């Protein structure tokens, strides 16, 4: 056999084999991708009703607000909310903010303390936005020297 012809023959064989491997890969790959999207193979079952999940941009849902509360963090909705979320929940929980009540001076002093000792960055123009938001929605209430007992869950004490 002509060496050139022999070479061409084996090249064709290799190419054929590559083709088969590629096709198999596509089939398996396609199957796996389908498994990810529809692991229950519902497309092959008579579909009773098909719910359509509309692809909304991620942020819309991630920062959902319900009844005036930012669901993910528990912050009250208001001007400056997202600036607060973006600057005040990286290191610590929003719970550390929402359980506290301070006036403008107090919140500003807290920011300064965090900058001096806790690696908080320079907030620049955002500082005023943040302080205004916090002093508006998380302002102190007068409590006096002793409050009434509240939220009492009454029950019958059996002996």
């Amino acid at each position, binding site marked *: 056999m002509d060496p050139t012809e022999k070479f061409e023959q084996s090249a064709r064989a290799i190419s054929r084999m590559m083709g088969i491997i590629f096709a198999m890969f596509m089939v398996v790959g396609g199957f796996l991708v389908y498994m990810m*999207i*529809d*692991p*229950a193979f*519902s*497309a092959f079952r008579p*579909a009773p009703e*098909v*719910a*359509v*999940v*509309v*692809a*909304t*941009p*991620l942020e819309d*849902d*991630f920062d*959902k607000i319900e009844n005036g*509360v930012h*669901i*993910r963090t*528990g912050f009250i909705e208001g001007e400056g909310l997202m600036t607060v979320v973006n600057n005040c929940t990286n*290191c*610590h*929980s929003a*719970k*550390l903010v929402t*359980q*506290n*009540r*301070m006036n403008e001076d*107090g919140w500003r002093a*807290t920011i300064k*303390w965090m900058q001096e*000792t*806790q*690696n*908080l960055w320079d907030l620049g123009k955002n500082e005023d936005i943040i302080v205004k938001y916090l002093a508006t929605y998380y302002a*102190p209430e*007068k*409590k*006096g*020297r*002793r*409050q009434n*007992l509240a939220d*009492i*869950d*009454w*029950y*019958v*004490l059996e*002996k």
Partner: protein
Amino acid sequence: MNRRKFVQNSGLTALSALIGAEIVFGNAMPKGYIPLGLQDPDPFKMFDKDPEMLVLNDKPWNIESLAHLLDDRVTPNRAMFIRNNGKIPEKVDPAAWTLTFDGESVQSQKTYSLAELKSRFSKHTYQLTLECGGNGRSEFDPPAKGNQWSVGAVSSAEWTGVRLRDLLDDVGIKSNAVYIGYHAADTHLSGDPNKEPISRGFPIAKAMQDETLLAFQMNGKDIPLAHGHPLRLVAGGWPASVSGKWLTGISVRDQVHDGPKMVGDSYRVPCNPVAPGTKVADEDMCIIESMPVKSLITYPKTGATISHGKNISFRGHAWAGELEVDTMQYSIDFGSTWKECNLEAPANRLAWQHFSGEATFPRKGYYELWARAIDSLGNAQPMVLPGWNPKGYLNNACHRIAVKVV
């Protein structure tokens, strides 16, 4: 707020956003399937805590107990509050754990393995009361910054370990030693590896007490991770923040230790009393040492309704920092009259004491049962808030529960 469900929904949306198309068969995704990385940790399962406890903060973890959950004579892990300044260490290997003594006032630096600590020094067990300096902070007016603890940041468990004093003797300390400061394996919230979240301590005299332990067991078992496994300092009667968890080092200092949360207004109160809301200069603030006299009614739970003619058998615990409680009183008329009730001696020094009594109610109506402890120096719990301080420490006002007689 159903955060888990929200995360689940947003996960599907995220997937659809990723694909850039509608996921037509989105409803066929297995129900209850949440990608592992998005799973919300259940703190009550993770830390083995009573689900009634209150999560004040989840980064860092701070979880408070309730009065009626603290009814046991020795506090079990299930009801013990969690207080953290930083992140709980992720990898703890007791086999490789070491404790290093250093500082200006050691003869020379010395390191012990955990195994060496356990085998070379004699073990001691004490029941020790640990109360957060900020327990009761939520009541202060003007409000004080920090986790808003009510009454549940206190515990009295049995701690087993070796005496810090025995270690200091073995290391050898110089005559100029005045203070010890601890170092630990927890990490700073900012992620900065060079920052310690907290490094506090106490004077040498406290370090030399019999009951000041380097503990490796709590209630007869390895200390739970959230409470300092595998090694922690336990110095009862002082703000719990001096009892450093995940202990890796002790610095013996020739001056008052100056680690994070030792300076500024942390764990300090005005040296002289101030009017509520006063700004106090750093140099006028003094470090809190012994905690003040205090008590807690742990039975019945607040909100008890009884029929007219029935009595209430109540009980609880009382403690007084470095001191003992001498007298225990209760009132059903907002402190107009006080009656004495039964008080037991502590299991050992610095353990809380148990009180019990029987209250009778003259007629139908709303009552509050108040408890008041008086220490061995005659200091009683105040009925209103004690002296205001910038960070809201040391609220030892009388505990009270609501009672209705019908």
